[in-house]
C-alpha cells in the first residue's frame, strides 16, 4: 500500500494540503466548532489538574495539546472522553452544551480515543479485540471484513485474524486506531501516540491522520515532542501547570518559542566534552543468550557489547524487544554464565545484584517506584537500599541512621531534588525529582559502570536536561555509562555510540556521527515491519 508513493514526496504533499485546509477553515467563519471547552477546572486532592482551561477544535483540524508531563493534558482529554468529570466549566459539542457522563456516551457522540497504554487482550485476535469495544451487536465475520476495509483505506495494514500477542507495538496501535475509526468518529484523541513508534512508523501514522483530517475528522493530538507538532498540527494549545499558557500555529513558531511557552524558558542543550583518560572496558558482554521464562517475553540471542570508561553507549529500541531481559542479565537480577557479563575485567555472570554492586555496578531501573525505590519509605531509607555498602553506614549489622540521613541530604543538595528533606516518602516526590534522587544515589556510589534504563521517562524537560548532562559528566569522570531508552532524540543527544535491540538481537554499536535516526529506525522496526515499509 504505502510503497506506491515515496514517503518523502508524501510528506511534502500532505504538508501543503493541511496548510490549505487550515486556510479554508479560517475563511469560513460560520462553521460551528466541533468541540469547544470553556473554563474547564478539575481539582484533585492537593493539586489543580486543570485551571480555567479553554480550547476550540474546528472540523478537520489537527489540534495539538502541548505540554510537559503533569501539565494537565491527560486530565483534560479524560474529561472530554468522559472518564473524569470536571468540577467546573462548559463543554460544547458541535455548538451545543453537552455533559459527557462516561466513555460510552463519548463514543455515541462520535469521540474516539487512542490511549498511550493500549488496552488489548494478548490472546485474542484483532477482530475479537475490536468487537469487545463495540457498543452495538456485531457479527465477527462481517466485522473482520470491515476491519480489513477500514485498515486498507487509511493505510493501516492489519490482518484481522492475527493474535494480538504476535503484533508489533506499531501494529497494536493500529488496532486501537481502527477500533476508533469503525465508529465513524468526528473527533479522534491521540495521547502521546508516537512514544512507542519508530520514525518510519510515525510518518505512516501522520499520513493516516492527515487523510482523516481531510475527510473532516477533528484530531486532538497530545504530545511534548515539538518537531512532531510542527510537522503535523494546524494549531496548538500549550499548557503548563494545569493552565493554558498560549495558543499558537506551530508552523509559524520556532521550536524555541514553543518550548518557552511549554516550559517557561529556553530548552537547555547538553554539552559533550572530549574524554582523554583511561578507556579500558567497564563492561563486556560476550555472546549472551537467555531464554525468557515469561511466555510473552523475548529471548536474548547472542548479544555482544562493550562499554569503555569515559563513554556513553546507548541502546535504542522499543520496549518489549528484550530490554527487560537484557537489563536483568546485566544488573544481576537474572543469573547467566560467568563469561557472558564481564564487569571491569571480572566475570560476574553468576553473581547476584548485590555482589555485582560490590564490584562497582550501579543501576537505575525503568520503574522508579517499587523497584528503584520503596514507595512508602523515606528518602533516607531508600538511600540505604544501595548505599548501605558505603563506609560508616552500618556497624556489626546495625544501621547508622545519622549517616544515612546525611547521605540522603547530600544527594538531595547535590542533585537538586525538590522535596521536604530526607524524611519525605519516596512516593511523595514527582517523577523527575525521584529520578534525580535515584540517579544521584547511584552516582554517589562512585561506580565503574552505570546502567540507566529510560533515564527521562515521564520526567519534565528541565529535569531531563539536567539528568542527561549529569550522565555525560559522569562518563567523562572515567565511568562507563550504558543507557537504554525508547527516546531516539535523547540517545542522539547524550551517546557516543548507539546500538539497537530488536527482537532480542543487538546490532553493532555505531559511533553517533556514522548513523542517523533513519537507519536506527529501520533497525528498530526489525523484520516484521520492514515488509510493510
Amino acid at each position, binding site marked *: 500500500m504505502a510503497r506506491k508513493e515515496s514517503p518523502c514526496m508524501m510528506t511534502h504533499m500532505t504538508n501543503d494540503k493541511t496548510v490549505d485546509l487550515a486556510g479554508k477553515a479560517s475563511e469560513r467563519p460560520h462553521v460551528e466548532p466541533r468541540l469547544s471547552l470553556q473554563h474547564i477546572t478539575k481539582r484533585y*486532592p*492537593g493539586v489543580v489538574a486543570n485551571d480555567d482551561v479553554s480550547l476550540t477544535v474546528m472540523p478537520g483540524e489537527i489540534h495539538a495539546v502541548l505540554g510537559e508531563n503533569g501539565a494537565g493534558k491527560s486530565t483534560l482529554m479524560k474529561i472530554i472522553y468522559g472518564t473524569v*468529570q*470536571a*468540577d*467546573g*466549566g*462548559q*463543554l460544547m459539542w458541535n455548538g451545543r*452544551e*453537552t*455533559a*459527557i*457522563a462516561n466513555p460510552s456516551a463519548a463514543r455515541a457522540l462520535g469521540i474516539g480515543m487512542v490511549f498511550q497504554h493500549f488496552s488489548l487482550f494478548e490472546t485474542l485476535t484483532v477482530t475479537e479485540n475490536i468487537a469487545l469495544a463495540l457498543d452495538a451487536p456485531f457479527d465477527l465475520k462481517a466485522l473482520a471484513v470491515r476491519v480489513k476495509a477500514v485498515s486498507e483505506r487509511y493505510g493501516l495494514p492489519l490482518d484481522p485474524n492475527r493474535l494480538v500477542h504476535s503484533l508489533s507495538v506499531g501494529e497494536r496501535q493500529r488496532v486501537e486506531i481502527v477500533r476508533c475509526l469503525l465508529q465513524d468518529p468526528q473527533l479522534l484523541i491521540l495521547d502521546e501516540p508516537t512514544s512507542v513508534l519508530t520514525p518510519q512508523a510515525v510518518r505512516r501514522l501522520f499520513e493516516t491522520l492527515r487523510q482523516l483530517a481531510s475527510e473532516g475528522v477533528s484530531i486532538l493530538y497530545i504530545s511534548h515532542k515539538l518537531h512532531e507538532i510542527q510537522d503535523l498540527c494546524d494549531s496548538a494549545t500549550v499548557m503548563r501547570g494545569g493552565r493554558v499558557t498560549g495558543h499558537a500555529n506551530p508552523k509559524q513558531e520556532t521550536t524555541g518559542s514553543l518550548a518557552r511557552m511549554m516550559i517557561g524558558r529556553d530548552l537547555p542543550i547538553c554539552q559533550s566534552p572530549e574524554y582523554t583518560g583511561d578507556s579500558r572496558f567497564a563492561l563486556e558482554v560476550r555472546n549472551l543468550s537467555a531464554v525468557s521464562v515469561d511466555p510473552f517475553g523475548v529471548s536474548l540471542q547472542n548479544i555482544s557489547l562493550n562499554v569503555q570508561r569515559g563513554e556513553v553507549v546507548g541502546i535504542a529500541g522499543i520496549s518489549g524487544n528484550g530490554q527487560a531481559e537484557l537489563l536483568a542479565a546485566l*544488573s*544481576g*537480577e537474572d543469573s547467566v554464565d560467568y563469561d557472558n557479563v564481564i564487569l571491569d575485567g571480572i566475570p560476574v555472570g553468576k553473581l*547476584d*545484584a*548485590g*555482589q*555485582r*554492586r560490590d564490584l562497582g555496578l550501579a*543501576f537505575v*531501573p525503568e*520503574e522508579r517506584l*517499587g*523497584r*528503584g*525505590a*520503596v*514507595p*512508602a*519509605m523515606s528518602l533516607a*531509607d531508600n538511600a*540505604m*537500599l*544501595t548505599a*548501605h555498602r558505603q563506609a560508616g553506614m*552500618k556497624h556489626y*549489622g*546495625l*544501621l547508622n541512621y545519622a549517616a544515612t540521613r546525611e547521605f540522603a541530604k547530600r544527594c538531595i543538595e547535590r542533585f537538586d531534588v525538590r522535596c521536604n528533606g530526607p524524611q519525605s*516518602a519516596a*512516593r*511523595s516526590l514527582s517523577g523527575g525529582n525521584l529520578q534525580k534522587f535515584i540517579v544521584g544515589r547511584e552516582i554517589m556510589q562512585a561506580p565503574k559502570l552505570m546502567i540507566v534504563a529510560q533515564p527521562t521517562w515521564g520526567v519534565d524537560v528541565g529535569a531531563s536536561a539536567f539528568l542527561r548532562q549529569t550522565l555525560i559528566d559522569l562518563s567523562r569522570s572515567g565511568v562507563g555509562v550504558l543507557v537504554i531508552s525508547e527516546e531516539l532524540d535523547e540517545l542522539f543527544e547524550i551517546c557516543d555510540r548507539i546500538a539497537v535491540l530488536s527482537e532480542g538481537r543487538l546490532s553493532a554499536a555505531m559511533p553517533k556521527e556514522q548513523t542517523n535516526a533513519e537507519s536506527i529506525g529501520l533497525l528498530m522496526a526489525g523484520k516484521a515491519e520492514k515488509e510493510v515499509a
Partner: protein
Amino acid sequence: MPLLEPRANPSRLMQWTAPLIAIVLTLLVGALLFYSLHVSPLKAFYVFFIEPLETSNGWSELALKASPLILIAEGLALGFRARIYNIGAEGQLLIGAICASGVAIYSNGAEAWWVLPAMVVAGAIGGGLWGAIPAWLKTHFNAEETLTTLMLTYVATLLLSWLVSVPWRDPGGSNFPQSIMFNDNALFTLLFEGLRVNTSVFITIAAVLIFWVFVSRSFTAFQIAVGGQAPAAAHYAGFSSRKTVWLSLVISGLAAGIAGAGEVAGPVGQLTLSLSPGYGYAAIIVAWVGRLHPLGIVLSGILMAMIYIGGDAGQVSLQLPSAITGLFQGMLLFFLLGADAFVNYRLKRRKPRSLHKKVTA
C-alpha cells in the same frame, strides 16, 4: 458509587488511632451483647476488666498470659512485615512444648541444673524446625506458607495427642492423656509465693528488647521490610528473598517454641492436650493490633491477656458462655481490619454530580 477514595498519603494518625477505634467498637458491641444476655454492661465490664486487677493474683495471671502472647507476636510481626504470613504459631508452640517436655521426661530424676535451660533450648529448636518446614517448602516449591503453617498445626496437635496417649503417658495418671508432672528443676521459679507468675517473663522482656533493637536498627530487618513492601526493590538491591522467608519463619517458630516451653515448664507443669488456650492464634491479632511494632505489641499483648482473664471471670461470676473470649478476640481483629481501611482511604466527599447541573445552577 464507591464510598471510599484513596488518600494521597497514608494517614499516620489513622495508623495509630485504628487500634483505639477497634477497641472502642469492640467494647460497644460487647456492651450490646451483654445487654442482650440480660447482663448489665457496666457490671460485665467491671467483672471483665477491673475486678481481675483488684487482686495480686489477677496481676500475676495477667503477666502469665501476656508473656507468651507477646513473645509469639514479636516473632510473627517480623514475618508479617515481610508479608510472610505464618499463621501456624500454635503448632510451633506445641512442638516447642513437646521438645521441652521430652527433655524433662527423659532427664526425670536427674537433679541437674541444666534441665530447665536445655528445655528452653529444645523448645526453641523444635519451634524453629517446625517453622523451617514451611520455609523450605516455600523456597523450593513456592508453597503458600499460610496453608503449610496452618496444616502443620494440625500435624503438631495430632503428634501431641499421640505422645500423651501412648509413649509419654503418665503410668500413674489413671489413663488421662497427660505426661508425668515435671520436677522442680524442670520448672521456672515462681516470682512470688502463692502466685503463678514465674521467671519466664524475663525471657519475654529480653526478647522484646532484642526485637526492638533488631527491628529498629538492624540491616537485616531493613532488608526484610523492603522485601515485604516492594519485592522488586529488594530484588533490585540484591536482597535475598529466600533469606527473608527463612528468617521470618524460623525466628517466629523459634519464639513460639520458647513460649511453648514456658507453658510446660510453667503454669501447666506437664505435657497435656490443653496446654495452650490458642495463644498461637491470638498472637496473630496481638501482632496486628500492636501495629507490628515491638513496643505496640507489648500493649496489645496485655490487652489480649485481659480479654482471656476477663473471659474466665465472666464465665465464673456471670455464667457467660466460654465462647465469649473468642468472640471478643474476633471482634477486635474484625474492627481493626475495618478501621485499617481508613489508613489508605477516606470517605468520598459529595460532589456535584454532573458538569451540566453545575453550570446551569
